[in-house]
């Protein structure tokens, strides 16, 4: 009898707790989704696919030799979509050149993908002293960047991939030096990494 009496409040209390737990869980999930969608938009659930698609990209360099992004797996990869006709793209490149010199030996690898023709890219790369590979994507590279999350198909568009080939950041518009460093420094410091 005592058991019967004490059972009812216990059950209702448990039920109440289950409800509260559920409500809190829904709240947390909603917040997490909101923050994630708000921050990164497209990356939600697509990281793996995007990264795979990116690493499989094969494009000619300015000399016409085919280069596959896969060859840089194991390095912290900064893939930058740009064009000579894009002034903001050109403005951020001297910073990329500096970072490539300073942090290349630590495993940082920039790769440019130009939405442009080879002759213009070569002339510009020579003038600026670009010290990392620049692949020639032509207009098709814009569609490629769209598949990687560049919904507006605007430039510059930059993707940062960690040593394991995971997309950790995408950026439409200029990637400022402090932001770039805040992202790549921890990635370069990962233990057990080659290079």
């Amino acid at each position, binding site marked *: 009898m005592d058991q019967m009496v004490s059972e009812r409040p216990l059950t209702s209390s448990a039920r109440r707790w289950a409800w509260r737990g559920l409500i809190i869980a829904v*709240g947390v999930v909603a917040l997490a989704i909101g923050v994630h969608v*708000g921050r990164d938009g497209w990356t939600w659930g697509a990281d793996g696919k995007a990264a795979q698609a990116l690493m499989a990209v094969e494009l000619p360099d300015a000399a016409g030799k085919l280069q596959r992004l896969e060859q840089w797996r194991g390095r912290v990869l900064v893939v930058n979509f740009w064009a000579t*006709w894009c002034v903001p793209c050109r403005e951020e490149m001297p910073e990329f050149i500096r970072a490539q010199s300073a942090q290349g030996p630590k495993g940082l690898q920039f790769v440019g993908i130009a939405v442009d023709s080879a002759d213009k890219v070569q002339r510009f790369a020579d003038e600026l002293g670009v010290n990392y590979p620049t692949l020639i994507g032509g207009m098709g590279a814009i569609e490629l960047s769209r598949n990687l999350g560049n919904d507006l*198909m605007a430039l510059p568009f930059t993707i940062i991939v960690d040593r394991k080939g995971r997309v950790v950041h995408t950026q*439409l518009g200029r990637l400022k030096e402090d932001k770039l460093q805040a992202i790549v420094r921890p990635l370069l410091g990962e233990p057990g990494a080659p290079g």
Partner: protein
Amino acid sequence: MVTPPTSAGLRTKPGRADGRTAAALASAALFAWTLTAHAAGLPGGEPKLLPPEQAFRFSARALDASTLEARFDVAEGYYLYRDKLAFSVEPGDLVAAKPALPEGKRKHDEFFGDVETYRGLVVVRVPLAHAAPGATVTLKADSQGCADAGVCYPPIVQQVKLPVPTGSAPGPLVQAPRKKGFFE
């Protein structure tokens, strides 16, 4: 009786149903807020940018059987490059001459030399030859521009179909489709 402590938010409203509603509303509000914060381009997010068809709205009309008037309505904070503007008319034998482009604002580009840009409303007259009144012609416009926020769009082609006026009154102003929205 021992009631385990509950969170402050759930305690403020009397009754379980009210508490639940409040919590659900709070979750919904948070979700909505984080999305809105993104759309508004608040700190931490990227600036909200228009698709090029909306940043560089193209429209045109036929003034008479020998003149088309093309317009670019450039949204505030965006600009077009003068030397990237090009027009063509189909059927192709209708273009009488290369349209005269208005002067733009000059700026020096270290790679391309002096370039001219347009902001606001750009109006260009495209001369036609042998267009039959009552016929429909297609005006195609190539353009390329950027946003002050620090991005550039690749060249785009926009087009409108225009009826050639039969009388002296100009034809209707036709807007090019705005295509996809921001989240599409």
